């Protein structure tokens, strides 16, 4: 039963395997360039498990602990998770004891796989979803370990490697664009955020953009249902 769910989930996670390996390596290299050894890479990837936030966290680690700014930055970078949770309320309904882990491991990539993945006949849905999540988590840890260890062994110029994160978001954007008929939310996401960046500067544009997006999407729904 459980074995079957693993066999069904594994092939679906292969694209994320490659993406996470590369992204995890980028994270590991950057982390080691700030002087943190492999134990830190594992610790962070196991308990935080959030791609973009771990890149941002590297910068925070080099500063003295500041609870409020760490809290606010994490909320800003991860606020989008709120919307992933909203989209998974239904799918995780029958996950039982696995539900806390499913919620914990809801990254961009796991979310995008779960959006479209359906277990084959006779395969347990909750275990199928669980293996997608846990395999992705494993790939992410593995990438971080490789990057951190290799970064310590072979010194090389890592300037620009953080573009892996940008590339990942562009890839998800393209995938979502192809799987949806209504492109307005995606376009609004780019246009409104860019406008907020120009108007509000680098520190306040994300919360501003979130409010504007929520507002404009609400208006859009009114128009649709009117």
């Amino acid at each position, binding site marked *: 039963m459980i074995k079957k769910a693993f066999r069904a989930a594994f092939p679906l996670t292969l694209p994320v395997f490659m993406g996470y390996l590369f992204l995890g390596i980028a994270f590991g290299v950057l982390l080691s360039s700030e002087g943190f050894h492999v134990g830190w890479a594992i610790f962070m990837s196991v308990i935080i498990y959030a791609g973009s936030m771990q890149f941002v966290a590297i910068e925070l680690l080099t500063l003295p602990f500041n609870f409020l700014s760490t809290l606010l930055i994490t909320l800003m970078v991860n606020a989008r998770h709120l919307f992933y*949770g909203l989209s998974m309320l239904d799918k995780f309904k029958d996950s039982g004891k696995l539900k806390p882990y499913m919620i914990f491991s809801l990254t961009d990539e796991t979310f995008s796989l779960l959006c479209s993945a359906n277990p084959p006949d006779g395969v347990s849905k909750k275990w199928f979803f669980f293996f997608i999540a846990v395999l992705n988590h494993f790939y992410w840890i593995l990438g971080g370990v490789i990057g951190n260890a290799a970064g310590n062994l072979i010194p090389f110029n890592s300037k620009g490697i953080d573009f892996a994160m940008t590339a990942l978001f562009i890839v998800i954007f393209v995938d979502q664009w192809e799987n949806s008929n209504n492109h307005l939310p995606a376009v609004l996401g780019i246009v409104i955020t860019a406008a907020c960046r120009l108007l509000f500067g680098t520190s306040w544009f994300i919360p501003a953009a979130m409010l504007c997006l929520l507002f404009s999407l609400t208006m859009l729904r009114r128009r649709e249902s009117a």
Partner: protein
Amino acid sequence: MISVILTILTVAAVTFLTRLLPFLLFPANKETPAFVSYAGRVLPYAIIGMLIVYCFKDIRFYAWPFGIPELLASAFVVLIHKWKHNLLFSIGGGTLLYMILVQAVFV
């Protein structure tokens, strides 16, 4: 050391909270309000667009190299992903191209 651990634990706890909150607010045994279901459907699209802009927040379009490496590498990612739909090519290739551009071409 303690400072580093506290930062990591805070990041981990807040990250988990952002994932957990919707499930606390809208428990499985109660009907989800229509607006929340609507938001759950459309927001993921808008949010990824927002994240892309977030990555580009520090580009200065009025000074050398005018964001050209970012634009070139992004165009490459879009095109190769539409063509192959392979994360390794898209992310790996785009990142390599960007690294070459900022290290060797636009220096």
